[in-house]
């Protein structure tokens, strides 16, 4: 069955060149990069080449990249690793209310340990409240963590200003760039961050690989122990095939960044124009802010976003809501709630996200399917 896939922010299909690059590492090059012999040497070469490719995507040096299993691990290592290594007297954390759970939960865990953690809010368009961030910053803060772009709305966050605030109070600054990497040009030096997380499978690489950028001179503590790999920050034999694929995917993303972005913006803008024109009672969340070019979070007045997502699934179109299916008092997207929306408003939203393989024809079909499903649901009994 062919699915009209409009959920690229959840994950992306594997790029064919990435798959070809991985074939070697899945076949002849099976060595352990830590081994002394030639097989190990070859595997090491592949890993280090990937490290340079991954570093290249974000303007970092290869020796500033730590490979992990993915975005969640990178975020956890960044947050908990930075806090574990923080100097005495600095244990506070400032983050945003719209972070991914991979940042929110470690921060909540840290707060559970008795430390001060502030979750800074956003405005109605989903942009970080910089004044509140500055007010929360201070000499007791060990880490400020703000995502580069939000996964639900695509709204881009003012990380440069966040990093400036962090520098002024002497804190480390981390940014979760899982959703932004491959979609926005990223230069860690211009951003001024100490730590930056991103993931392979969001940019047409395989699942099971991610990276944490760690600026030279920044010290964090490992969360696992038992090996010398990744400068002891991430012990365990490297997932060589996934790392190789991740490297290739970063190289491709870097290469296609501008073209991909332009194309995604055209398709997304067309989608939004058509939806707003043809589906009554629709509104775009975060439309007033700078957004990722591929993301469209649409509110359908009076509708249940989950019902729409499932009906679209039955029609062969894959989209996402910010929440899991739940019988009654389901909690809608924490991101939309943080934007000041009521639970009913937040529940009426669906996220559409497009990507490299999306075609103009698919956008037309997507609009038609959304119209069909919305018409059906509005006609269906309450």
């Amino acid at each position: 069955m062919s699915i009209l896939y409009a959920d690229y922010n959840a994950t992306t299909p594997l790029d064919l060149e990435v798959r070809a690059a991985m074939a070697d590492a899945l076949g002849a090059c099976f060595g352990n990069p830590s081994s002394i012999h030639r097989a190990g040497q070859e595997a090491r070469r592949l890993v280090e080449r990937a490290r340079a490719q991954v570093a290249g995507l974000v303007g970092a040096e290869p020796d500033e990249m730590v490979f992990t299993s993915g975005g969640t691990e990178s975020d956890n290592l960044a947050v908990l690793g930075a806090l574990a290594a923080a100097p005495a007297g600095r244990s506070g954390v400032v983050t945003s209310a719209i972070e991914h759970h991979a940042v929110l939960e470690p921060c909540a865990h840290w707060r559970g340990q008795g430390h001060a953690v502030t979750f800074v809010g956003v405005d109605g368009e989903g942009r970080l409240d910089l004044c509140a961030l500055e007010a929360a910053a201070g000499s007791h803060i060990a880490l400020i963590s703000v995502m580069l772009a939000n996964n639900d709305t695509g709204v881009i966050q003012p990380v440069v200003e966040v990093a400036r605030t962090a520098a002024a109070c002497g804190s480390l600054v981390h940014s979760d760039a899982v959703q932004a990497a491959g979609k926005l040009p990223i230069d860690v030096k211009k951003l001024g961050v100490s730590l930056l997380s991103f993931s392979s499978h969001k940019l047409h690489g395989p699942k099971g690989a991610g990276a944490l950028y760690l600026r030279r001179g920044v010290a964090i503590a490992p969360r696992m122990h038992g090996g010398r790999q990744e400068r002891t920050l991430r012990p365990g034999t490297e997932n060589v095939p996934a790392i190789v694929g991740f490297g290739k995917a970063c190289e491709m993303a870097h290469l296609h960044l501008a073209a991909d972005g332009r194309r995604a913006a055209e398709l997304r803008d067309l989608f939004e124009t058509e939806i707003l024109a043809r589906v009554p009672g629709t509104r775009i969340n975060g439309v007033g802010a700078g957004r990722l070019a591929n993301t469209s979070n649409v509110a359908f007045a009076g509708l249940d976003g989950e019902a729409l997502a499932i009906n679209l699934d039955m029609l062969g179109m894959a989209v996402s809501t910010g929440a899991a299916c739940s019988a009654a008092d389901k909690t809608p997207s924490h991101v939309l709630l943080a934007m000041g929306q009521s639970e009913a408003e937040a529940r009426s939203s669906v996220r559409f996200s497009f990507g490299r393989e999306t075609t103009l024809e698919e956008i037309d079909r997507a609009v038609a399917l959304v119209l069909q499903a919305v018409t059906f649901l509005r006609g269906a009994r309450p």
Partner: protein
Amino acid sequence: MSERIAVAMSGGVDSSVAAALLKQEEHALIGVTLKLQECHDAHGSRSCCGVDGITRAREVAGNLGFPHYVLDCVKDFETLVLLPAWQEYAAGRTPSPCLLCNERVKFGLLLDWAGRLGIERVATGHYARLGRDGSGRPALLRGCDEGKDQSYFLAGLSLSQLERAVFPVGHLRKPEVRELAKRHGLPTAETPESQDACLVEPGESFAEMLRQRFAAPARPGEIVDEAGHVVGEHAGIHAFTIGQRKGLPAGATARRWVKAISPESGQVTVTSDPRAILGTEFVAKDVSWLAGELPATPLACSVQVRYRHRSEPATVRTQADGSLAVVLGRPAKAITPGQAAVFYDGERVLGRGWIAALA
């Protein structure tokens, strides 16, 4: 005709086969598994409601080629089923949570949820059949497999709930269902029965699980014989049900059965005379009639007082307070307050009440 149907899938063989049969009829299907407990509560559970059930159901739906979702009912299940069940145990009665689950969750929350998606009907793997009565209203009938019939658990559904229900395996016998599972290549062909195992492992006590979940105090007390002599002590009345033999101090001469449970005194009365746990009369409360209105009484029908019990001929009469006085034609064993009394006209369910007190 093709319909939009949500299939409640536990991951077990019955609901998997139900889904396969509907798929064969080319209905537009979605599979739904109700999540009834948090993963961390499951402690490696193999029960139908655990995470492995979700995984199996998802696999079956995938193999059959329709989408599958997990509906989080954890909080509602606790409020609508588990807490009332505990309150029954605490009051010295033995609850029938499966009826509540069907009435309030599967054909309550799930039916409502499906309705919001524009899906009119909900199918389950219950062994029960649907028909029509003389005036065209839906009728709930016993499943064809006498040993598996689950109409008892569905007897509290309303006409409007039955109108939207589908029971695709109700006309089959269990071996046929297993055979169909094999023929459809369903991975669930050999899975064990999930019945009665909801949230607890075989051998674990459902009542004790509830007590711990709600951090409720136990009601300990004496075990007395019919003459009032103390023969032992117990740690909580919730561990007992009428007719129970396990967990009682051995009698001098014979086996013992629980005859009565008093929540006030905490006393559990036991008997050595098996005839003492036979009864012919009881009162049923909160009766719901499938036809909606009360049939004219006295009504001659048959009554089943527990799942897997044989139904007995009976005469029921309405009383001034709206409850029903039920007189059985033959003595039945272990009529237990808290259990459902289900009224049948032959194969057809007339309604259900809750056994309140023995007369």
